[in-house]
């Protein structure tokens, strides 16, 4: 586990951590070395190797979508093929105007790939489909293209798309201009494709090293939490899918120019299968691994004598996929990075160890007030639910709950397991949509709002299980939360540092969040919520896993927060509830059962009955 986290540090971000890393050094050096080989490679070898690089680019598009933002798409070859067909059709028709073909085919390929990906992405992400549905739908999309393209014949300008016969006479890659411009020789084509691919890779690495990439990683690790930090994950996922689509389209356009011929087999199941294999062989999430995988797989099938995809090659590829998923989950590059980190870490382990225990929380009410100011002024985080109801199948989890939460009034929700407390909170954040009733927040009807919009409006929640991004360190967790509000790197830095100091976690700031104890993860999650400057704070079992001393600090923090913001605490720990000295609402079977201060409620026999499951008052509710 630890090894994995360390390895992931290699590819994640400098944000929220000290020291920039010179990630661009390796790819540049490698590109220069490979470019040098283009001068003495055998032309036939150069021709074959060009194809591997193009497939590597296709693999890169999947690794971005799957490895980094966590969406398994089986439709990358569809985007590749569409980009290839579109780019080639335009190149056939217009290349004679300039002599050059690249300036036609590559932009058109990229555009068509991006456009189709945008349509698909809008559909699957804004439809909030699950990972399985996405995989099946993208696979179906590829298969529809396969079946329709076989019988699709058309003449577009001078380009003839001949159904099963394919489209021939696609001009080769030409980079010179003018009437006498010549097609590239295999070695020069290798060089050009290499440089284009290197350019795409470096741009993508730069993009993924920015906060955008950090948020993509968040979505892969914890999509629900990412949305509860106020990020519209649908837009990020669609954006990533569009970028992936344009990369696949570029690869397709290059492929058309390389092969001079395209046919429907580009959409076939066998082709589609190869893309995840490239990614898995190289190492999912490493980006560079896609190229390594394409070269390894291409080299293997070349060596087996199939050239492209011979009959036995399919069997071997199928077996490879099975073995990779079963035994080499992290691929070649992933495994290499593991070993490298392990070697490095074992040398320096002595100094990097930090103490496990955390310092006391420093509650500074002025600082808290600063955190809770939105746009420089205090806002009223008044939340009102009217007859809010939520059903699951036949179970009524929340039954016509009408409540009003106001700043300055701390509120506790208690009730036995299954009373609907957590479900009620999730209805407030929009994770669950109401089946009946209305939710009004800050004077606006938010009943149909998406969770991220509610968070932006000022609702912050710590869910029952502390949700932190395991692979990130403590400071990065806080930074991502702060960046959601500030959208500014410097302000996010400052906010993360202040929150670290307040939580007493400065010494642990570079520890992976997964190494924290349960109680520390609770603190970190609460810190992330506070970084959002919420005006309504919902805390679901915040004291679970905390020591007596930590509970005392938490109680003080909650009471301080309640002076400025609306705070709702769900808790089973009655001693902790008592220290909050708040108004208590008892939920039972989804409905409000009783309300009052804790001392009065403790004397109420009916509440003891529902907690203990005693007969008398349980039946008639």
């Amino acid at each position: 586990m630890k090894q994995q986290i360390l390895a992931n540090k290699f590819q994640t971000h400098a944000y929220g951590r000290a020291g920039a890393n010179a990630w661009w050094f390796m790819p540049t050096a490698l590109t220069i070395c490979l470019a040098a080989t283009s001068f003495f490679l055998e032309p036939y070898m150069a021709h074959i190797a060009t194809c591997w690089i193009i497939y590597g680019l296709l693999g890169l598009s999947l690794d971005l979508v799957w490895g980094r933002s966590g969406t398994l798409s089986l439709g990358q070859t569809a985007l590749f093929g569409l980009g290839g067909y579109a780019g080639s059709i335009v190149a056939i028709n217009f290349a004679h105007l300039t002599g050059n073909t690249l300036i036609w085919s590559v932009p058109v390929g990229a555009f068509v790939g991006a456009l189709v990906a945008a349509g698909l992405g809008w559909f699957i992400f804004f439809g909030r489909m699950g990972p399985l549905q996405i995989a099946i739908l993208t696979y179906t999309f590829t298969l529809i293209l396969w079946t329709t393209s076989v019988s699709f014949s058309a003449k577009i300008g001078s380009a003839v798309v001949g159904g099963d016969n394919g489209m021939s006479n696609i001009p080769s890659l030409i980079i010179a201009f003018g009437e006498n411009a010549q097609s590239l020789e295999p070695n020069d084509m290798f060089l050009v494709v290499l440089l284009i691919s290197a350019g795409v890779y470096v741009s993508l690495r730069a993009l993924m090293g920015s906060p955008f990439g950090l948020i993509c990683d968040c979505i892969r690790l914890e999509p629900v939490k990412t949305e509860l930090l106020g990020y519209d994950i649908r837009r990020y996922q669609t954006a990533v899918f569009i970028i992936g689509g344009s990369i696949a389209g570029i690869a397709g356009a290059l492929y058309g120019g390389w092969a001079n011929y395209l046919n429907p087999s580009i959409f076939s199941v066998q082709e589609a299968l190869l893309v995840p294999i490239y990614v898995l062989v190289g190492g999912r999430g490493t980006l560079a691994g896609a190229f390594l995988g394409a070269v390894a797989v291409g080299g293997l099938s070349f060596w087996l004598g199939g050239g492209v995809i011979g009959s036995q090659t399919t069997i071997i590829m199928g077996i490879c996929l099975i073995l990779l998923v079963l035994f080499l989950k992290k691929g070649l590059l992933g495994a290499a990075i593991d070993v490298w980190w392990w070697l490095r870490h074992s040398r320096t382990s002595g100094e990097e160890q930090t103490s496990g225990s955390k310092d006391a929380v420093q509650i500074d009410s002025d600082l808290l007030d600063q955190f809770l100011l939105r746009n420089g002024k205090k806002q009223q985080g008044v939340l009102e639910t009217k007859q809010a109801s939520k059903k699951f199948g036949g179970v009524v989890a929340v039954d016509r709950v009408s409540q009003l939460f106001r700043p300055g009034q701390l509120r506790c929700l208690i009730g036995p397991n299954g009373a609907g407390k957590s479900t009620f909170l999730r209805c407030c954040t929009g994770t669950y949509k109401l089946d009946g009733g209305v939710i009004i927040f800050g004077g606006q009807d938010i009943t149909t709002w998406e969770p991220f919009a509610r968070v932006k409006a000022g609702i912050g929640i710590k869910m029952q299980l502390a949700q932190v991004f395991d692979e990130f360190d403590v400071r990065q967790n806080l930074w991502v939360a702060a960046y959601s509000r500030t959208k500014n790197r410097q302000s996010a830095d400052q906010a993360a540092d202040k929150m670290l100091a307040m939580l007493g976690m400065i010494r642990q700031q570079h520890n992976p969040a997964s190494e924290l104890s349960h109680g520390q993860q609770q603190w970190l999650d609460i810190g992330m919520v506070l970084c959002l400057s919420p005006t309504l704070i919902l805390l679901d079992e915040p004291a679970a896993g905390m020591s007596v001393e930590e509970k005392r600090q938490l109680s003080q923090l909650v009471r301080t927060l309640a002076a400025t913001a609306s705070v709702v605490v769900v808790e089973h720990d009655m001693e902790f509830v008592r220290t909050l000295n708040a108004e208590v609402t008892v939920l039972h079977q989804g409905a409000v059962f009783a309300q009052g201060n804790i001392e009065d409620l403790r004397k109420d026999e009916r509440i003891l009955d529902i907690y203990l499951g005693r007969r008398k008052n349980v039946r008639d509710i």
Partner: protein
Amino acid sequence: MEFGIDYLIAVAVSSMTSASILIIASLGLAIIFGLMGVINLAHGEFIMIGAYTALFASKVGIPFPVAVCFATLITALFGAVIERLIIRRLYGRILDTLLVTWGLSLVLYQSAVLLFGSVTPGIGMPLANVQIGNYTISAYLLFLIFVAFALSVVTYVLLTHTNYGIMARAAIQNREIAASLGIEAGRINTITFAYGAALAGFAGGILLPAVPATPNMGFAFVIKAFLAVVVAGPVALTGTVVAGGALGAIASATSSFWTTVAGDIFFFVATIVILRLFPQGISLRWRLKL
């Protein structure tokens, strides 16, 4: 073109037949998905194994009904072996099972191409024809409607009203608790996967007169079967019968009035629209057990 009443009846019957074929082909997939959370992309190739087994069995003179039973058994054994060797390492990792079974699917497909060539002879319809006005329909196809119905009911009862079914559903819902109640989750899962494979083998055999055995027959079936299962959602068995039946019947009717391609496109478009409206499947709020 005049649509006589006999034509409409013939279209209705052939739509029901297509729907039944789809239901027969999808049941095994639905069981494996619904009970084990595994998407078996090699399901189509399991059907193919059943079809080839039944074909060769009847070629050597075994009566067709016995050949179908034989096909069921062989495919079940194959499924059990695959579960032991591969699937059991991957429970809970749904996308990984999808990738692994995808690889398996291509291995089986390509092996069939190498072993049997891409075209093999079919076998004749075992039963006589039925006349509807000017149209004739094979009685065997009508028999398939009955088979689809009977198979669905038997599977439902088996999985909801027998000890095995209850244990199987317990084993997948919570492995530890099931184990602590004395249920051998590993063995139950092998049986369930083998049962899903058996349904595929049975489908391959029983459909053989209607759908000849070819290496790529799996692809033809399995896409629509997946879509039916994904559209169905959490209540996998009943949902798949409903989704597969409705989509299959309407697509078949569409292709009777227009073209086969129109029928396919209708199927895909309808699926996409339904998934947009019910991203988690149509049965999310149903209160059935399976």
